[in-house]
């Protein structure tokens, strides 16, 4: 089956991203396809490359990045939700005149159309959040 995942909550505060990660991993192991992982609402914060969790805890962003690398996952961060929360990649930082960027290179910024297109293309859209 072909899945698009929608993650609406930030890392550590909420289990949503962990559950989505475990789901994606299990689905891929079973031979299913993850068409896209879309980060929205506070979920955009999962894409920060600057988080430093304690060493004996999981690193959620790096977990996603490793899974994406292994399976060539398309991980998209909503641009409007990201901008509102100060999540920028280098291009966007340049365009907005900001002096820093924080999006991990495993993720890319795009519009909500990517969520809708993902929902249309997939057999199931699964939301992780409240």
């Amino acid at each position, binding site marked *: 089956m072909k899945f698009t995942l929608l993650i609406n909550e930030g890392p550590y505060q909420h289990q949503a991203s962990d559950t989505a990660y475990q789901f994606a991993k299990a689905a891929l192991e079973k031979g299913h396809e993850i068409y896209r992982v879309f980060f929205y*609402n506070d979920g955009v914060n999962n894409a920060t490359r600057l988080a430093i969790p304690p060493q004996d805890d999981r690193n959620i962003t790096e977990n996603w990045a490793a899974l994406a690398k292994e399976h060539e996952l398309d991980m998209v961060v909503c641009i409007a939700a990201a901008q509102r929360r100060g999540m920028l990649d280098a291009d966007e930082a340049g365009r907005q005149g900001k002096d820093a960027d924080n999006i991990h290179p495993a993720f890319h910024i795009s519009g909500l159309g990517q969520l*809708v297109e993902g929902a249309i293309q997939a057999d199931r859209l699964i939301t992780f*959040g409240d």
Partner: protein
Amino acid sequence: MSEAIKKFMFVNTKAPYGTVYALESLEVVLITAAFDQDVSLVFCDDGVFQISNNQNTEASGMKNFSNAYKALGDYDINKLYVEKESLEERGLTLDNIMDLTYEDDDWAEKPSIKLVTRAELADLMDDQDLVISS
């Protein structure tokens, strides 16, 4: 883009200003309509407050986005279901809800809002390809 048309139902369960969900859900609704999908909205639980009359955010310093709901008709989004029990539980009636309308093919103005019971809503949900709640 895709030729497929799916039935998207957006279920709004939260009050408009306590969290960002209502505002950011509305963004998804408008984009989904731009993809020419079959879009319907549900307002239940505290979500009924999203389309309540006379919203005033001045004291809270937040942006009042309630006018955006009035534009839904222009995007051919005209299936807005308000759950009867949720209104009753909060001491509200349809008189407290915005008069949201759309123009049909003959330019006649029609109401977009339909009052439905919890049981009717279950049937409507059963009929969707996607149910996205926030």
